[in-house]
Every structure is written in C-alpha cells, then in structure tokens.
C-alpha cells in the first residue's frame, strides 16, 4: 500500500485521480465514483516513467499502486465495477492487499487462480512442479494444445499477465517436500489446497497449522465433491481420508464438478481475504451434481 507521501512522489496526487473520475449511476440510482480503465493504465504508465520511484517497476506493480490509491479515496477502478457492491470498496482494497499461497495449478488450481485474479487478489504465490499432459485437457483451464508439455506454473503466469497485471504473481515450477511447504505458506494470509490426490494433503495441513495460516481445501470424485476451511488446529476432511487411493481414481474428475469446487473455494477465499471471515470453518460443503444437491456438514 502506498503511503500518502508516496502518492505525491508518484505524481499520483489525490487531485489528479479525482480529476479523472467519472460519476457512474448504478441501477438503483446511487452514484459511484469510477476511475476509468484506461486512466488507470495511463497513471500507471506515468508512474513507471517517473525516475524517482523504482517501486513502480514493473508496470503491473504500478497498476496495483494506482488501483489501491483510488480505492483508498473511495473510488472504484472500472475493472472492479461489477464486483461492487458484492464487495465494498474497503473490501476490494483488502482483496488487493491480500496475500495467498496456492498449492496446485491443475484442475482446481487453474479455475481458482483465474477467479482470484479477476476478483483482484493482490499477491498470489502458486506452486506446481507438473507439466500439462493430454488427460488434463478435459478440465484444467490452462491446459491447451499449445501449453501441452509445458509447466503449469508457466502457463498460469502467462495467463495472469493477460487477465490482471495488478496481481503480483509468483509462480514456482517445483514439487515441494514438506519442509519447503512450510517455507512456502509462511506469512501468507491464506493457503489454498488445490492439490490432486491424497498423497500430499496431510503434509500441507501440518505445515499450515504450524505456520498458523488458515487453509481452504477441496476435492472432487466424479460428479461429487466438497470444499472445506481448516483453521489452524481445527478439524478438516483430510484428517479422515488417509493417503491411499481416492474415489476419483475410478470416478474421474469431470470439468463441471472441478469448476464447481474451484468456484466455491474462490468464494470462501474471498470471504476470508475481504475480512468477512470464513463460512466453512470446521465444516464441509458437499455437492452432488448428479442429484443437484448441496449440503453443509459439520466435522
């Protein structure tokens, strides 16, 4: 977050931003001051050019500074207009200041990352050592004919530059051992478990508990799946599942179920990052798309 003195330094004075605002009338008649998309980019460009502020490099960081400065003034960057007022401007600013550690960039991870980036989560570090293979194409958002054989982390980084450059995205193309997981999640506001399979779930949970970081987790098998939030020391579904084979080995992981789980994870992550608090702590929201049923169960 830019301090007030930074704003002047950055030629990002309150006056300059206010001068570019367009009053936008919402459907219910309320007025919302909006900073148009191209003005955000222009301001960011002028920041990047200013010699006395190295902070503003690269461009994406400058965009983030402009968006945060606008939100702090009660002005909505146009990019987030349709987040309003599902998220208040204060909550939107909290999202931009949010810092998440995401493990896995496959089925759950691709959809999840896309939703968080569009929502405006400011800092995302994501790790996956895997490369795309043809059997990923049925569900993994960043698996394309072009990305096959390449690192999932690299495809995610390329996509985020297109979707929202204000996100400070740190991709890591590596499989982490348990000690590395501990370093990876340290200091994050939230960890997202987008792993596939059961093998590494318990280790990640141990490390988020040790680092005192809340964890949003999910899994899918066939048309059913669940999403849960595990607060440090609290109960979670993977306390019960062991590390053996999961039902997905026989039922598969079709796209609608995976995307449903990812969307529910994203919403819960935004609940936590925006300051509203988790809705699924100690619970699991279970869905069965075959029956079109949803149920929240207490662990």
């Amino acid at each position, binding site marked *: 977050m830019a301090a007030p003195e930074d704003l002047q330094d950055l030629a990002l004075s309150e006056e300059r931003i206010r001068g570019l605002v367009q009053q936008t009338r919402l459907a219910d008649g309320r007025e919302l001051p909006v900073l148009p998309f191209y003005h955000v980019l222009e301001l960011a460009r002028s920041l990047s050019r200013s010699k006395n502020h190295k902070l503003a490099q690269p461009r994406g960081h400058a965009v983030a500074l402009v968006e945060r400065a606008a939100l702090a003034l009660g002005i909505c960057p146009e990019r987030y207009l349709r987040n309003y007022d599902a998220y208040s401007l204060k909550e939107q600013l909290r999202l931009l200041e949010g810092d998440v550690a995401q493990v896995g960039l496959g089925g759950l991870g691709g959809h999840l990352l896309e939703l968080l980036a569009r929502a405006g989560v400011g800092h995302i570090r994501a790790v996956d050592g895997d490369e795309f293979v043809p059997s990923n194409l049925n569900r993994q958002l960043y698996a394309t004919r072009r990305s096959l054989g390449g690192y999932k982390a690299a495809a995610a980084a390329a996509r985020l530059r297109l979707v929202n450059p204000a996100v400070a995205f740190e991709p890591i193309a590596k499989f982490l051992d348990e000690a590395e997981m501990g370093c990876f999640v340290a200091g994050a506001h939230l960890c997202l478990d987008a792993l596939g399979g*059961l093998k590494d*779930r318990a280790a990640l949970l141990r490390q988020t508990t040790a680092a005192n970081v809340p964890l949003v987790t999910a899994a899918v098998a066939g048309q059913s799946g669940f999403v849960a939030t595990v607060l440090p020391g609290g109960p979670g579904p993977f306390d019960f599942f062991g590390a*053996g084979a999961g039902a997905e080995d026989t039922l598969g992981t079709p796209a609608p179920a995976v995307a449903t789980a990812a969307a529910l994870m994203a919403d819960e992550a935004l609940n936590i990052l925006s300051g509203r608090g988790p809705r699924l702590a100690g619970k699991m929201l279970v869905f069965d798309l075959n029956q079109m049923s949803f149920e929240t169960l207490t662990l």
Partner: protein
Amino acid sequence: MNITVKCFATLSRFSPPDVDAYAISPGDTVAAVVARLGIPEEELKLVFVNGAHAPLDTLLADGDRVGLFPAVGGG
C-alpha cells in the same frame, strides 16, 4: 422406523433403492446399517448423522439422515 441414507461417490453403488425411506429397527446403529448395505469397512471414511460428523456406533432414530463418504481427493 425409516431413515435417509446418502452414499457419496464410489459408495453410491451400495445405495439402497429406498434412500429416502430406508427401514431400520430399534437399536440399529450406523455400523449395523453400513454392514447391511454391504459397504466394506476400509472404504468408509466419514459418517455424518443429521449433518454432523458421528461415530459408527451412533444409535439411529426415526427420520435421521445418514451420509456416508469414501476418501475423495481429486482435483
């Protein structure tokens, strides 16, 4: 006495035909129902009764809702 039985994911192959009105006898526990449905012990990982996690020896009553889960880890 009837209960509702919901078998998730791979356990759905053990679902009785009358999931919304599965007949039980007084004194039946979750374990008794699981055995009657033929669900192998090692496949059952989580049991819910009326929306809350419950042990296998939970005594069932008329109208209870039972949810049975295998291990699920796909992503």
